[in-house]
């Protein structure tokens, strides 16, 4: 008798555990969205219709790191978590004006790059190329827009202005 009672208790406990496991793993992710180990995997949930690609070249034609100028694409695969009053990921990415799917206007790019050039007095100017990838027709994607800007180092303008002042004296 006690053996069958034990088996009955064991059976009930197993069924309760199965039910609890199913309930928790189903319900909690729907609320928290991303809270390890609970997750409704959100990778590739972005839907984009265009995207930018940036290139930065120095005055000698050498390519420069996009991160130096805040033009890198930080995370194109996972949308940031927004549940439970949160917005973001575990760690912050370096600042960038390059938002996935968006095309930053010229003024914003120039302002951002000039701020970064202030930390690099060795660079008199840089060339920034903004290429926009999007649908070129109903079948394929490719280059749909392109702009190239020479962005002068604000320090260089200051130095030029100082040289002019000295000459005048």
């Amino acid at each position, binding site marked *: 008798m006690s053996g069958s009672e034990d088996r009955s208790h064991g059976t009930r406990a197993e069924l309760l555990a199965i039910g609890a496991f199913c309930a928790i*793993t*189903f319900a909690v*992710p729907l609320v928290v969205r991303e*809270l*390890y*180990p609970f997750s409704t995997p959100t990778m590739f*949930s972005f839907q984009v219709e265009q995207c930018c*690609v940036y290139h930065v070249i120095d005055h000698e034609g050498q390519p420069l790191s996009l991160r130096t100028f805040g033009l890198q694409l930080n995370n*194109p695969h996972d949308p940031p978590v927004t549940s439970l009053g949160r917005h973001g990921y575990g760690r912050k990415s370096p600042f960038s004006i390059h938002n996935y799917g968006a095309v930053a206007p010229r003024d914003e790019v120039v302002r951002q790059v000039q701020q970064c050039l202030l930390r690099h007095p060795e660079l008199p100017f840089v060339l920034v190329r903004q290429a926009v990838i999007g649908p070129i027709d109903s079948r*394929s994607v490719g280059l749909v827009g392109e702009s190239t800007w020479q962005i002068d180092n604000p320090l260089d303008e200051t130095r030029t202005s100082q040289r002019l002042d000295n000459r005048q004296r």
Partner: protein
Amino acid sequence: MPADSLTARTRNLLQRSRPFFGQFSLWALLLTCMYLVADLGHGYPDRDKDSAVSVIGLLLPESFFSDERVFELCRWAFFAVAICWFFRVGLPVTSWLTVVFYTVVASIYWENLPWFRHKYLVPNWLLIVYAMWMQFCSTEIKTSLARGDFWRSRLFPRWVYVLSVYSIALFYTFSGYSKLLACGPGWGSGLSLQIWMQLFGNQESYVTEFVLSDRRAAAILQSGALWLECLAFAALLSSRLRIAIGLGLIGLHLAIDSSFGIDFRTNILLVALFFLPIYDLKLARPLGNDLAAA
């Protein structure tokens, strides 16, 4: 659902079989988890903290996650208890400790990333299911090992297999519905897939070439992936659906690996193990009875 049918299904779930599939799948799962943990880095602890992205992230201070010594200690603790579990030592305590340390190590990793890494999720849930198996059957397991008739004893409850399939299916179903919630059925239009391939795809991959060649081809692949994920839950309804969905998911991961280089190979292994007809082989059937089709 009629009471008789519910009782029959419940009895079916509790039915126990010989432990061939259970033991070999457990070994495969533990080796998979060891590979994942060995491959882990500490992430980017020097960057500014953003949000809490794990349960323990809500409970513990940031210093816990940024200290590399804590990470390494938890990692080595995981290996120690996982190896004990592998050799069936200290059950069921070592099984639950394996779950705890795997969860902690993966959580630390997530807390130190400026993105997410979802390939650690499915193994985590399977570890919990298998620890539940140990919890309910460790006495019989230890007794059978002492008697020397482990492989002939009925030790593997069917619910362990069913919950494993459920965990994997739920992961993909949630992934599909996340896309639907974010963008609606238009997510599968093919345009965003072509842009991803143009920007990030391996240009020498046949998959990349196929997607970029024509938007309709891209739409078929992208919509197919979306609905395959959304309907992954159907794997619980029949063995034929489970096999078809399993093959589809394996193909999806192989295509993503080939074109984007995004590694989900551990998921490929686990989908193959639980979705393809390995459990249904005669070795897994209970003594004297044929296992009912899923």
